[in-house]
């Protein structure tokens, strides 16, 4: 059974998406348990895979028994062995937490929603697990198309914002496909390991250079790296809360994973950081991304949109860390994939709970919330501490590695940007806390329930949120183990 984990990871959510869409016609109440079971199996397989990788090393799974250059292989090493459980667990927790929110927001679309949700998770898990460059493109589009569907189920502005995302997302995926085409021209292979084997003699070729840069631009578009970020804030803000708390933590992080996979496995770090001599420019772009993300977040008077700009800034952290070109920076970037997925999940779930109760997320809707929803706001405090980077929450440790990486690369601009963004995060979140804690209830919301009373979101939403908040601290406390037992082996030894 456990040999089949890589296939189960993708096949179970895929087939259950079909089952859910049929069950939706029969009885809507069947959809949720099926989705939970499917993602439970996926999460179980992902954790099982990580344990197997820790135990036995890299796993190559040949789909249908076809060997790599001809068939599609799933390839699990320490890098995606770490990312897979994060994706699966984030999707699983978010699914459970949002049962009530889905019933409240679109009671007549429960079946389609869970179908899209499962397909989206299939796509994301597939991107992470696959070892085939073209297969990655197809799964990228599966995740993107379902993402458009999920994001468009929202406020009045959601369809237009999603349409803008769709243009940019399609261009990004097409660029990636074009880059893979160039790699196929020069190597005649689509398997990542095979390409990596065939590439080294060709590193001086202009086509390889073009392939790398085109792939990178495509992936940057998809992850909303600063000058290419314009689609993200609106698309994530106007979507329904269940979808945005799935997509905001996972999509950008999975794309960061793809970027690191391209750098480390398909190409080599020597080619990317030494032959290309681009890394300094990219790290400076990341500096601009971090600073602009922080400044634009500061300009917002709306909690959810503020958080989306923080996502843009966090993308800058990870791209910059990966492109510093040293071991500490890369460790920080990989660790930040895990941490940022969890802390973004935490804060977006908080927004989901607030939307469920207050029906709004503008700053004026937040007044007096500490008294009204103490547990939700407690989780927001932990999530915010993690984004600011306060120990022992996990955000501190990845930021620490990133700063150490910046110092040993001699890139003080990046270090300054990281510290600047932490400072701005302090301002951002304490401004929110001030409104929630000190300002009394707003009049237009106060009259239907007596002011001062507690009016927390349902238990089924609060408990998963608190679990995420605890995970943030646990991951922080066990950072040493994660780095020493997993991430250390994910980075090639040639990289110092």
């Amino acid at each position, binding site marked *: 059974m456990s040999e089949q984990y890589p296939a189960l990871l993708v096949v179970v959510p895929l087939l259950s998406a079909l089952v859910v869409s049929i069950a939706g016609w029969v009885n809507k109440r069947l959809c949720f348990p099926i989705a939970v079971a499917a993602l439970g199996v996926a999460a179980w397989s992902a954790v099982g895979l990580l344990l197997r990788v820790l135990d036995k090393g890299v796993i190559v799974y040949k789909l249908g028994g076809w060997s790599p250059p001809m068939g599609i292989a799933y390839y699990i090493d320490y890098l995606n062995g770490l990312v897979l459980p994060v994706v699966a667990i984030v999707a699983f927790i978010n699914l459970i937490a949002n049962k009530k929110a889905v019933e409240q927001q679109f009671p007549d679309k429960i079946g389609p929603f869970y179908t899209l949700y499962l397909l989206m998770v299939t796509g994301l898990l597939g991107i992470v697990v696959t070892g085939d460059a*073209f297969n990655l*493109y*197809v799964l990228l*589009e599966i995740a993107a*198309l379902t993402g*458009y*569907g999920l994001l*468009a189920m929202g406020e*009045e*502005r959601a*369809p*237009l914002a*999603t*349409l803008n995302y*769709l*243009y940019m997302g*399609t*261009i990004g995926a*097409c660029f990636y*496909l*074009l880059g893979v*085409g160039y790699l*196929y*021209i020069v190597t005649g292979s*689509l398997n990542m390991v095979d390409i990596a084997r065939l590439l080294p003699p060709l590193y001086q070729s202009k086509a390889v250079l073009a392939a790398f840069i085109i792939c990178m631009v495509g992936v940057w578009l998809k992850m909303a790296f600063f000058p290419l970020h314009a689609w993200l804030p609106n698309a994530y803000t106007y979507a329904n809360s269940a979808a945005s708390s799935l997509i905001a933590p996972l999509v950008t992080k999975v794309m960061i994973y793809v970027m690191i996979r391209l750098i480390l496995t398909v190409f080599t770090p020597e080619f990317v950081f030494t032959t290309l001599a681009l890394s300094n420019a990219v790290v400076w772009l990341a500096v601009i991304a971090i600073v602009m993300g922080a400044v634009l977040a500061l300009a917002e008077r709306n909690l959810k949109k503020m958080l989306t700009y923080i996502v843009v800034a966090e993308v800058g952290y990870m791209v910059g860390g990966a492109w510093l070109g040293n071991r500490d920076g890369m460790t920080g970037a990989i660790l930040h994939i895990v941490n940022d997925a969890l802390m973004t999940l935490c804060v977006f779930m908080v927004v989901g709970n607030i939307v469920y109760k207050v029906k709004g997320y503008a700053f004026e809707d937040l007044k007096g919330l500490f008294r009204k929803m103490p547990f939700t706001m407690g989780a927001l405090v932990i999530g915010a501490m993690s984004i600011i980077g306060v120990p022992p929450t996990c955000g501190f440790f990845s930021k620490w590695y990133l700063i150490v990486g910046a110092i040993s690369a001699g890139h003080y601009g990046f270090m300054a940007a990281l510290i600047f963004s932490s400072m701005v995060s302090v301002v951002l979140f304490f401004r929110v806390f001030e409104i929630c804690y000190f300002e009394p209830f707003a009049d237009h919301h106060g009259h239907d329930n007596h002011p001062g009373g507690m009016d927390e979101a349902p238990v089924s939403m609060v408990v998963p949120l608190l679990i995420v908040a605890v995970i943030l601290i646990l991951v922080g406390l066990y950072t040493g183990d994660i780095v020493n037992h997993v991430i250390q082996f994910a980075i090639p030894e040639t990289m110092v």
Partner: protein
Amino acid sequence: MTDLISMVVAKYNFWIYITLMMIGLYAIIAKNNLVKKIVGMNIFQTAIILFYVSISVKKGATIPILEHGHGPDAHHVVHAADYINPLPHVLMLTAIVVGVATLGVALALAIKVYDNYGTLEEDEILAQIREK
């Protein structure tokens, strides 16, 4: 000048796909009507499909179906040079499906936008959003 022309002619498939891609990109960026943007996006995708198909071509080769593959006069020696490379075609079959799906989702979203604002011109929609 002749250098330039011979360069263009020698690799004309690349020039065609880049031209098409840029036409698509221009439409996405510059057009005001949402459906025109969507059409531009589709041209962009099609350009890449044509690029893939064009790289599978070999001089003097035929479609990748084995001649006399079975039957009484079947011969089993296959010369790869006699057949064009089928793999990019197979890949593009998937990419075409993806393109159709994207087009469908985009048009569905355009219908939703039209329901909300009663127009598909982007400037008019933005003016309506600003008024609120």
